C-alpha cells in the first residue's frame, strides 16, 4: 500500500482557511441575523469540521469504510438529537400529556 503524502503547502492553505473561518464566525456573531445567526455559526463550524476531517485527518484519501464510519456516527448523533426532540419540540401540543408544558422551576427548596 503506497501512501500519498500531501505537501506542506496544502496543509498551510487549509490552516489559513480555518483561521479565516474562525475570524468570520466571530465577526458574524456580533451582527443580528435573527434566527439565521445559529444557522450561520453552525454552518461555519461544519465547514471547519469538514476541512479538518478531509485534509488533516486524511478522510479525502481514506477507504470507503472510514467514510462510512464517520457518516454513520453523524447519523447516530442525529438520531439521538432528532428523536429526543420529537418529544421536547412537541410538548404542549395535542392533548393532555402535552398539557404538561415545559413549566420551569419548582418549589423544592
Amino acid at each position, binding site marked *: 500500500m503506497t501512501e500519498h503524502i500531501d505537501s506542506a503547502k496544502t496543509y498551510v492553505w487549509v490552516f489559513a482557511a480555518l483561521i479565516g473561518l474562525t475570524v468570520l464566525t466571530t465577526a458574524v456573531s456580533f451582527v443580528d441575523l435573527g434566527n439565521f445567526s445559529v444557522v450561520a455559526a453552525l454552518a461555519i463550524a461544519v465547514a471547519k469540521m469538514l476541512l479538518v476531517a478531509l485534509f488533516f485527518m486524511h478522510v479525502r484519501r481514506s477507504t470507503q469504510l472510514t467514510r462510512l464510519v464517520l457518516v454513520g456516527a453523524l447519523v*447516530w448523533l442525529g438520531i439521538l438529537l432528532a428523536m429526543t426532540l420529537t418529544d421536547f419540540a*412537541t410538548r404542549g401540543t395535542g392533548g393532555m400529556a402535552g398539557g404538561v408544558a415545559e413549566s420551569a422551576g419548582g418549589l*423544592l427548596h
Partner: protein
Amino acid sequence: MERETYLNAGYGLKSWLLTRDHKRIGLLYLFTITLFFFIGGAFATLIRMELMTPQGGLVSSETYNKLFTMHGVAMIFFFLIPSIPATLGNFFLPMMIGARDLAFPRINLLSWYLLVVGGLFALFAMLAGGVDTGWTFYTPYSTTYSNSWVIATALGIFVAGFSSILTGLNFIVTVHRMRAPGMTWFRLPLFVWANYATALIQVLGTPVLAVTIVLVFCERVFHIGIFDPALGGDPVLFQHLFWFYSHPAVYIMVLPAMGVISELVSTFSRKPVFGYKIVAFSSMAIAVLGFLVWGHHLFVSTQSVYAGLVFSFLSYFVAIPSAIKVFNWTATLYKGSISFATPMLYAFGFIGLFTIGGLTGLFVASLGIDVHVTDTYFVVAHFHYIMVGGTIMAYLGGLHFWWPKMTGRMYPELWARLSALVIFLGFNLTFFPQFILGYLGMPRRYHVYPPEFQVLHVMSTAGASILAVGYLMPMVYLIWSLRYGKPAPANPWGATGLEWKTASPPPLHNFDETPVVEHEVYDYSAVVGEGI
C-alpha cells in the same frame, strides 16, 4: 508427550492475569460473570422469598429496595451484557473467522480488567450498604433523595461500560480486518454476524450511558441542575439519555443469544440456516432499529403525545426482524436431521421463551395497553422472558455446545438434558404468573402488596426455587467434567465452523496453519460422518 494447548502453554497466576490470549481472557470473563450471576441470583432468591407473603416480614422495605436494585445492576451490567459476547464471543469469534487472535489483544485484556474494576466498585457499594435507586437510576431520586451508595455503583457501571465499548471496538475491527483467506462476509457464521451487530450497538450506545452517568455524578456531587426541576432542569431528559442506551442494551444482551441459536439450530439439524442472508441482515436491522424505539419506555412519563405515537410506531418495526429469525429457525428444522443433544434442548427452550417474550413485547409497545401494564409485573415478566428465558438459555446452550472445545472434555449428557428441562419448567413457573399479576395491576418494585396477589406470588417463588436448582446443576457437573469428563474429539457435533477444524482444546495460536476457507457456510456435506 502431551500436545501443547492454550491451557498448558503456561501455568501460574501471571500466565492468566497477564495473558493476551483471547481464549484465556474468555475464560477469565466466564469466571467473573459466573460470580456475578450467583451474586445477582442470591439477591433474586431473597426477593422471591420476601414476596411469598404480602405483608413483607422477611426484610425491611429499605433492604428490599436495595435487593432489587443490586439484582438488576449485577445481572444486567456485570452478567448479561458481557455474558455471550465477552465469554463465548471472545473465545470463538476469532476462531470462527480463522484468526489467531482479536485485533487488539492488549485492549482485550484491558477490557476484562475494566469489568473487574467496575465490578469491584459495585461490590464495594453492595457491601458498604447497598444502593436503592433501581437499576434505572431515575432522577431526581438518584441525584437528590437517595441516601445510598449511588456514586460508587454509578462509577462501577461507568467503568464497566468502557469494558463493553472496548470489546465492541475490538470485535468490529477484528471482523473487518482479521478474516482468514476465503472467509467472505457471507461465509461468516451467524454467530459472528450477531456479535458484529452487537458490537455496533456497544460502540454507538454505551458512550451515551457514560456521559449520562457523568451528569448524574455531577448533579449529585455539585448540584449542577441538569436534571433538577428546582433549577429548571428536566428529569425526563435523563430518561431519554438513559434509554437511548438501555433500550439498545436489550439487544446487546439478546442479539448474541440469537447468534448462538442460529449455530445450534443449524448444527443439530445438519442443515444450513434457512434464509442465511435474511437472518444475517435481520441482526443488522435489529441493531439499527433498536436505536429508534427508546421512547416506548416513556409513554406515561409526560413525554409528548406525538413522541409517544412516533416511538410506538417504530417499536413495531423492530419486532419484525425478530419474528423473521424465529420463522427461519423453525423452517431450518423442516426436513432436517434433528438431534436432541443438550444444546439443542436449550435452543428449543430459547425459541419458545423468546417467542413469548417477543410477542408480549407487542403488548407493551401498544400505547393503549402500555398505559395499563407499564411499571407492573407484566413488564417484569416480559423482560425476564427475553433476558433470562432468551439470553441465559442461549448462553447455557452455547456453553454446552462449545464446552468440549474450550475444555477438551465432554459433560455428562444425561445430567445436562435434565438441567435444561428443569430450567425450562422452573422458568415458566416463575415468570408466567407474573404476566397475570401485572395484568391484574400488581406494580413492580413493591415490598408489600395487597393480599389478593399472594397466590400468584407463591407460584412464582415456587418456580424460582426450581429454577435455582436448575442453574446450580450445570455449575456442578460442568466443574465435575473438567476432571472426570470424557476427552472430547475435535468435532463432537459434526459442526461446520472453523473452530471445530482445530483440536479440542485448541492450540495456543488456534490453528496450526492459517485456515483457508473453501466451503460455503454451514456446508454439512464437508463434515459428514464427523461427530459422535
